[in-house]
């Protein structure tokens, strides 16, 4: 039924079999184009200096971690707009609890993970039990967290111990720890989606919630679970950011636009906003595209607003290419 004819080239086969998400093609093209521009207009370090390449990935870590969680809820046909302030509350709370003392690190970590679980549960319960539209529910929760943070903290609060900065700045051999963390999180995300029953059920809930329910899936539990995982991923992202910044600030989440960027990168990676479709490897490519653009514009010294324009163009192009593709398949 799914036989491929010999006339199809390797690219079509690879993308059609879903082994490699088509967005990696975009990633390569964007990297080559910006790299060539860099060669012509600037010092050409993008192709020659491995540190720059690594930097592309390091820049992407914080967004990458939370985007993995966002991918999960999007596949469940939900959305999480509260991740940015979840990141903020994690950053300020963890450095506030640590106060530079290595002995307090475990308390801080447990504390912020519990906060994440509570936020995720709140989101999930509001969406499934009160049947509030996920956009509104998580927007509301986001505002609540924002209010709590702003009422409590107004500037950098506390600090992280030196040892904790290992996550942000440490290396194992030549490889930055942060890259390993990103890969680990993406792999966990992939495993959850592709190799667990929870993942299979999540695709079911997102694809058609009633079908899943009538098939015996506990749809509410699955969606709540996805929201908890998403909030926890935002917490991990916040922990990573605070280890980079050495001290938590309440504006770290919204300044990074982690809510909308995590949604955008997931969608660029092929995850459908309508749910039931997508995966974390595509999201990783979406995050790296943003990383390449940020690095390239730094290199080229272009007006930062230009970056926003290009990001916007890429989101639209990527999503348009998916709908055009699926329309062709339908005919």
């Amino acid at each position, binding site marked *: *039924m*799914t036989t491929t004819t010999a006339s199809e080239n390797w690219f079509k086969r690879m993308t059609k079999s879903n082994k490699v998400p088509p967005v990696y093609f975009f990633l390569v093209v964007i990297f080559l184009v910006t790299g060539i521009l860099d060669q012509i207009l600037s010092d050409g370090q993008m192709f020659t200096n491995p540190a720059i390449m690594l930097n592309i990935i390091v820049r992407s870590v914080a967004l990458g971690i939370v985007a993995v969680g966002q991918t999960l809820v999007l596949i469940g046909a939900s959305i999480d707009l509260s991740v940015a302030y979840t990141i903020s509350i994690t950053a300020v709370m963890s450095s506030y609890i640590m106060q530079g003392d290595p002995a307090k690190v475990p308390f801080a970590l447990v504390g912020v993970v519990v906060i994440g679980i509570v936020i995720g549960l709140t989101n999930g319960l509001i969406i499934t039990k009160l049947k509030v539209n996920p956009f509104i529910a998580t927007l509301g929760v986001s505002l609540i967290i924002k209010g709590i943070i702003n009422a409590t903290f107004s500037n950098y609060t506390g600090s992280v111990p030196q040892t904790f900065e290992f996550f942000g700045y440490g290396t194992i051999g030549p490889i930055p720890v942060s890259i390993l963390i990103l890969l680990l999180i993406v792999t966990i995300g992939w495993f959850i989606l*592709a*190799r*667990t*029953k*929870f*993942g*299979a*059920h999540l*695709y*079911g809930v997102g*694809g*058609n919630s009633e*079908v*899943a*329910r*009538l*098939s*015996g*899936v*506990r749809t509410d539990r699955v969606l709540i679970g996805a929201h908890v995982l998403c909030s926890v991923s935002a917490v991990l992202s916040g922990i990573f950011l605070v280890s980079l910044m050495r001290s938590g600030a309440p504006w770290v989440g919204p300044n990074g636009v982690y809510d909308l960027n995590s949604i955008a990168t997931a969608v660029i990676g092929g995850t459908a906003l309508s749910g*039931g*479709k997508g995966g974390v490897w595509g999201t990783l490519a979406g995050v790296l595209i943003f990383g390449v653009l940020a690095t390239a514009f730094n290199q080229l010294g272009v007006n930062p607003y230009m970056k926003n324009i290009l990001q916007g163009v890429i989101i639209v192009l990527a999503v348009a290419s998916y709908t055009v593709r699926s329309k062709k*398949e339908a005919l």
Partner: protein
Amino acid sequence: MTLASSVTASEQPITKGPVMEVREIFKRFPGVVACNNISLQFLPGEVHAVVGENGAGKSTLMKIMAGAYIADSGELILQGQTVSFSHPQEAQLKGVSIIYQEFNLLPERTVAQNIFLGREPGKYGALDYAELNRKAVKVLKEVEGDQMISPTAMCNTLSVAEQQIVEIAKAISFDSKVLIMDEPTASLTTIEVRLLTDLINKLKQRGMAIIFISHRLREVFDIAEKISVLKDGELMGTLLTKDTNPSEVVTLMVGRELDHYFPPLGSPEDFGEVVLRVKNGGNDFLKDINFELRKGEVLCVAGLQGSGRTELAQALFGVVPFKTGSIEVNGKIKNVKRPPDAIRQKMGFVTEDRKAEGILPKQPIRDNILLTVRTLQPLLGFIYKDGVRKTRTLVPDLAKQVDLRADTFDREAQFLSGGNQQKVVLSKWLSSDAKIFIFDEPTRGIDVEAKASIHDMIRGLTKQGIAVLMISSELPEVLGMSDRILVMRDGRIAGELPAKSSEQDIMLVATGHQVDQKTSGKNQAGKE
């Protein structure tokens, strides 16, 4: 285990108790009692059909039995024990499974993932894909034999028939004691129905109790041993198939004899000039379409699923237009490339999928009715509550004309019954003063009484000089309504038949039977 129990059951037929029983089931929805103290027993190894008009409470009762709804009162008894299901999963675990009327497949997941959704194999929450595909192969083989669908195929690549096979595979994979089938044959071709019948017989021999819901009485009489009839949420009676006949069942279903089921056909003096003529029409789905439609007649288009009937309607209305050939309206060649072109030529299209293409479910009745006529108004013109500038009382007038019963025109269209929704769609096109009506399955999923009133209405349109092209997959409807019949096959018009042809004639043309006879003749000659 199932084998052993079925053996003992057949050895001691007298002590064979019901595998499942419902007692005094009562369920109320806002404004309607869906099940009013219904009690039924289902025996192992027996096919028990539940029939009734739409809204009779069949589906509600089945959903209660499968744990998708919770009854307000009453008892479910499974193998002698009272049970209560708060979620479909609990019913499944206890051995009650159900195939629903609509397709319940996830398009972006594989066949195997769909079959075992919610019951994936694997330990500690991990998913064992090798085992999943192995199990899927096993159950697919049981349904299809060795030429089966690949378990790793994505469901959006499957044909409708293949999807139904996956549905069946999913249902039998439960290995349950009670299997409920809610209109499993609604979208199947004759061959697939036979496949399903064979499967049902196989499952019966295993001692499964099968509950079969269908609108098609002929199948019910072929398959079921017992027939229970529901009407307006009440049980009218349970009959043994061998002791009854279809007209007795229908009488119980509608509470009256069906003498005046169809209005009389048109007489020759009703038919006027040709209003629509298609010459050599063709596109990706259709080839060599040639036909004429006269004022005042009902021309029916029959054919099997996928023969191009709906595509023909869509081509006429410009949804998926003809690429070649021409459409003449009132003798003049017209370019119909988009629906507005067709509306300007005074065509109306009552679509097959009422929910998706016919009504705006969340809009009030009045705005649904005025939808088309308002698009014909000037862009910045006023819109009126119940009509347009010329006739401000359009909505009540039309509602009267089509016999639309609603307490208020402010009611959202989604709350109307299927029959009344269809009347809303009809008034929408009447308001635009359409002279050529295209009906695609106008009575699908509508109960018998509303069907009759829709039929009367269609015939009434022709009396006003409107030409009607009607697509239907129900042969009794085709025969009862048409002044002429076009039969389609493989995107072509395979033949034209006069009014009062027989069902056999239509099926012969629709299945291309003459061709088969020729080839089989050749084969025999070859053998000799």
